[in-house]
């Protein structure tokens, strides 16, 4: 079985190549179905290959496909262990549903097949990232998903804002990638190899705590770029310029979790360092709270979800930073379910409202779009952490992990708890604004339920959002058992033992969720003037939140503008006069010398002869004079 693992990556890649060349010929719906089938095929294969893990029979294998650079331990090799298998199942499973959804969502789009080429390419790249058996191949996938993200954000390339957003994502990610790359170089300098096997098994004897901290923090920079953490999160909200399936697949469910995956994969390194883990956790908790407050005041339905994604990724960072890797990966999974569901639901609403994204112009949509409304409600409850839906179990495990670490982590636990309250508030606010109350539609908009290709994935994801959490409850730790082989080198942090502690902690977080949801329901399930007054009462704080703490302005003033100035100076003060001047000067020198020297070339053979004879006589004379 293991020798066929490469097909998991090759299937979507082959589909992408095929659609690139023949997509236009096979036409609109069929291209989409082919793309969906290829991803679903990968899912089926991955499910079959993961069976030994479910039965606890295998600890994972590494399959070498092609020796790339053996000297640095870089090969095209597939590391098939439970963590990789779980990531693969999430990517292909959720991915297939989103592909199916995109067939309906992108209906009538001129570059329909091109969109699926990119989506397939993305899935192949992401699978390369998670299935890599060494850091070199991982980095290859890491860059490829960045490229696909860029291509898909600026998919509607005629919109200037989409192009700007694509560029922004690319540049910000580059900053993170730079840190990551330096981290990889440090790893290579320390271990002389980049292969997982060579690194993790020897880490304990080779790696000093200082070096582990350096590597860990550099990996954190890369992870913060890809997973949109403070201070590199600014690209993600703008990335909502892309089509909604892209937001769901790349910027909620899969690509942005790559950072969490990398930290979980490098768990051994973080364990050796005394402070790298706590720093990761702190960054995560801060990001969670920061982004949640911004999400509170957003009017754009997709931007709420974008900031919510950043906030939830912060939770995952909190978990992996606290060495609760299973909790982090668990939340990664449940978040993939419900955030994909919420994004697809939002897409369905946007689709039905004729591309309206402002929530203040929605309202009362539950009658027009019943399926979307019900599935969105499930997603909202799931993310708000209300039992027994998926988000409750994973979020509660993260908070439990933070609580049991104690010390500084108690502060982070409180931050997480507050964030849970805010999360429930803004998600309920979104649901109420969109689906309840009186219609505030602009004239001429006739909301309608979306086609079946779009509602089917919604229903499937809603089902997963309900039951997904039951994989790993304090009463039945199936996921932890499943992932055990991947983390056997690490001492995992577990939530506090005992039913009493569980009831206490779960009760607190449920209470926070219910409080937030209830407050939002009471505030917003009223006429617009009343909740408008509520928001106005916050005054300038609310404005600050709605403008995202003006971080973009800050970056513009402190980083982008000086950078542009420097580039301008280099271009016009240095490049033009000095580089161009040198080049043009060389040309002018040659021309001047030529126009002076052309007089020598008279065309008179005898003049040339005279010069030649003079030279000959001079050489002979010199030889004889020297010899004499």
């Amino acid at each position, binding site marked *: 079985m293991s020798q066929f693992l490469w097909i998991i990556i090759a299937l979507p890649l082959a589909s992408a190549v095929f659609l690139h060349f023949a997509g236009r010929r096979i036409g609109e719906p069929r291209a989409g179905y082919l793309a969906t089938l290829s991803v679903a095929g990968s899912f089926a294969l991955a499910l079959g290959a993961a069976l030994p893990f479910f039965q606890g029979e295998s600890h994972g294998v590494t399959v070498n496909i092609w020796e790339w650079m053996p000297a640095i331990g870089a090969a095209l090799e597939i590391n098939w262990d439970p963590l990789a298998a779980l990531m693969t199942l999430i990517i292909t499973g959720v991915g297939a549903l989103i592909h199916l959804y995109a067939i309906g969502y992108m209906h009538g789009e001129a570059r329909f097949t091109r969109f699926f080429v990119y989506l397939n390419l993305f899935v192949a790249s992401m699978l390369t990232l998670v299935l890599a058996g060494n850091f070199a191949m991982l980095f290859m996938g890491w860059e490829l998903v960045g490229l696909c993200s860029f291509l898909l954000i600026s998919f509607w390339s005629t919109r200037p804002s989409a192009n700007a957003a694509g560029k922004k994502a690319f540049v910000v990610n580059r900053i993170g990638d730079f840190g990551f790359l330096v981290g990889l170089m440090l790893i290579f300098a320390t271990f002389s190899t980049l292969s997982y096997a060579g690194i993790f098994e020897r880490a304990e004897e080779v790696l000093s705590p200082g070096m582990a901290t350096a590597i860990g923090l550099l990996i954190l920079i890369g992870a913060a770029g890809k997973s949109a953490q403070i201070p590199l999160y600014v690209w993600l909200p703008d990335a909502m310029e892309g089509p909604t399936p892209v937001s769901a697949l790349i910027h909620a469910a899969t690509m942005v979790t790559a950072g969490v995956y990398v930290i979980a994969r490098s768990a051994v390194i973080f364990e050796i360092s005394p402070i790298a883990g706590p720093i990761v956790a702190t960054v995560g908790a801060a990001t969670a709270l920061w982004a949640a407050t911004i999400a509170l005041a957003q009017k754009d339905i997709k931007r709420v979800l974008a900031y919510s994604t950043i906030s939830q990724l912060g939770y995952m960072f909190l978990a992996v930073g606290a060495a609760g890797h299973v909790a982090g990966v668990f939340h990664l999974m449940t978040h993939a379910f419900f955030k994909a569901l919420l994004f697809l639901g939002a897409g369905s609403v946007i689709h039905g409202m004729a591309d309206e994204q402002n929530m203040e112009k929605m309202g009362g949509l539950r009658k027009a779009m019943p399926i979307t409304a019900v599935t969105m409600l499930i997603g909202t409850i799931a993310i708000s952490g209300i039992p027994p839906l998926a988000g409750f179990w994973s979020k509660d495990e993260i908070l439990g992990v933070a609580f049991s670490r104690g010390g500084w982590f108690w502060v982070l636990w409180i931050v997480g708890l507050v964030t849970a309250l805010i999360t429930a508030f803004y998600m309920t606010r979104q649901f109420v604004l969109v689906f309840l109350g009186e219609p505030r539609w602009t004239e001429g908009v006739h909301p309608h339920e979306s086609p079946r290709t779009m509602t089917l994935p919604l229903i499937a994801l809603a089902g997963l959002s309900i039951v997904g959490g039951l994989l790993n409850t304090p009463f039945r730790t199936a996921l932890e058992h499943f992932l055990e082989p991947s983390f056997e080198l690490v001492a995992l942090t577990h939530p506090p033992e005992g039913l009493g502690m569980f009831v206490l902690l779960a009760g607190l977080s449920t209470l926070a969720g219910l409080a937030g949801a209830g407050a939002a329901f009471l505030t917003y399930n009223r006429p617009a003037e009343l909740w408008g007054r509520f928001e106005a009462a916050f005054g300038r704080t609310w404005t600050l939140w709605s403008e995202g703490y003006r971080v973009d302005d800050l970056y513009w003033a402190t980083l982008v503008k000086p950078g542009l100035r420097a580039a301008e100076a280099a271009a016009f003060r240095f490049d033009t006069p000095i580089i161009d001047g040198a080049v043009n000067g060389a040309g002018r020198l040659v021309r001047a010398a030529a126009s002076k*020297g*052309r*007089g*020598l*070339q*008279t*065309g*008179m*053979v*005898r003049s040339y*002869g*005279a010069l030649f*004879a003079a030279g000959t006589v001079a050489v002979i004379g010199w030889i004889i004079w020297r010899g004499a």
Partner: protein
Amino acid sequence: MSLVVTSGWYMTLAAVLFALGALGILIRRNALVMFMCIELMLNAVNLTFVAAGRALGNLDGQLAVFFVLVVAAAEVVVGLAIIVAIFRRRQSASVDELSELAG
């Protein structure tokens, strides 16, 4: 006095003849005369070969003359053909008029 004519005498004569030929090439502009001057220079070199061969006591000098002669003959044939071709086109054998390649 007993003046013995050594190889050096012949070589000196050859050097002077060579210089004369070179001078002719520089000051004459008739292509035919320039060609004759080249022949003069070649003959001077041949004389040197024979003299050197005698001084060294072997026949290689004379053999070299033979080959130079062949090359000179071939060169004369081609060179005169070129001169004729130019003359047919321009009605002149002056090399100074062939200066289209001036810079």
